[in-house]
């Protein structure tokens, strides 16, 4: 991973190597690959995300993976929990600030843009550490349903089906092979679960986030399947 020459550029300040790389940022992206995976799919009039709650000690309560940002937006992260929570908190504050000014919920793209700028700034300054977290954001607004991912570089991607975290390449492979533009909510949850299982074998409870109508709702897999039968 690290050549002997990289040494002095790899620590402390975010600094270019002679071949134009930012190692601190690359290391942050590596950290994301240890996070438990999240898979999300956008359909015509909905967007869903699935993730498993973290496997912890049986004595402990499970840790939530999907977070509500506002009534219309939800997000799930992979990477350092503290860094993810910093981003979630930023997004929550920004959406409430928008409500204070406009008395309406914030659109998804503006939230993602805000977080993208926030993350990007950590790649530009010395003395700070780029956030070791990636985020999948799903939501509903005036112009439609949205699915975005964000990475430690501050890169924003919008798409139909995406995955982040451990073995996300495997999950993406499943999505690439089986995604269809006319998926129903039920079909999307099924495909997302298949992709998630490809990335991670686990029996931990599944969390599902669904953007439908004007809201984003968080629920268990059973509730999500019931919701898919009769969305409202």
């Amino acid at each position, binding site marked *: 991973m690290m050549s002997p020459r990289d040494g002095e550029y790899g620590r402390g300040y975010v600094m270019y190597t002679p071949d134009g790389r930012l190692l601190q940022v690359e290391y942050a992206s590596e950290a994301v690959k240890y996070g438990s995976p999240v898979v999300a799919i956008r359909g015509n009039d909905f967007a869903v995300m699935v993730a498993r709650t973290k496997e912890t000690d049986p004595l402990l309560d499970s840790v939530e993976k999907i977070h509500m940002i506002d009534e219309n937006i939800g997000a799930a992260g992979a990477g350092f929990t503290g860094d993810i929570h910093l981003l979630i908190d930023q997004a929550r504050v920004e959406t409430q600030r928008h409500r204070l000014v406009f008395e*309406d919920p914030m659109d998804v793209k503006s939230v993602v843009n805000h977080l993208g700028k926030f993350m990007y700034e950590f790649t530009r300054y010395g003395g700070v550490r780029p956030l070791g977290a990636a985020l999948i954001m799903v939501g509903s607004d005036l112009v439609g349903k949205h699915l975005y991912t964000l990475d430690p570089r501050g890169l924003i991607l919008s798409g139909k089906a995406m995955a982040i975290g451990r073995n996300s390449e495997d999950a993406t492979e499943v999505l690439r092979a089986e995604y269809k533009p006319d998926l129903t909510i039920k079909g999307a949850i099924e495909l997302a679960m298949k992709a998630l299982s490809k990335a991670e074998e686990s029996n931990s409870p599944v969390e599902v986030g669904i953007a439908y109508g004007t809201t984003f709702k968080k629920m268990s897999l059973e509730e999500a399947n019931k919701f898919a039968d009769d969305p409202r």
Partner: protein
Amino acid sequence: MTTIVALKCADGVVLASDRRATKGGMIGSKGVKKIYPIDARKAVAIAGQLSDANYLINLVKAEAKLIEFDRGFPLTVKEVAKMLSNMLYSGMRSYAPYITEMLVAGVDETGSQVFEADISGAVTEEDYTSSGSGSPMAYGVLEATYRAGLSTNEGAEIAARAVKSAMERDPGSGNGVQVLKITKNGSELKDIRGVPQ
């Protein structure tokens, strides 16, 4: 001084104004513009201190454009009205109020919308509304003739008639009428100079 009106119609909105600016008891200008487009489907009609209104509109136009670039779709009519009202409210709260009242009308994803924002920053949503010294006369016409489901063409007639009526009895209003029709397909400005019959 001034008479401005704004109407919500089935297929869009209509704004209308007179053209007179007064300086005390004197007519300061006979061809002043009181309806300002914010973007292709939104406009603001103004009453009160012209300089204050122009300042706020320039600010909101710039801010609206920046937000549209950032998020990829334009502000809603309500968002424009709220943005103006936030500035009006902060002016009032800092003892330096913007002496103006504004009618914000347009078409967005939620349909035709009309809002009124006053000097205190209060915003109300309306089907039809009027402001300025001629508004009592304009309201007479609006109360008698406005109904829900008007087309913008019918609305334009009623709006022009309301402003003309005010011009007959209000010395602060006169010198012509401007009517702006906005539908989801765009806008059309009609200009009646002089004293219309």
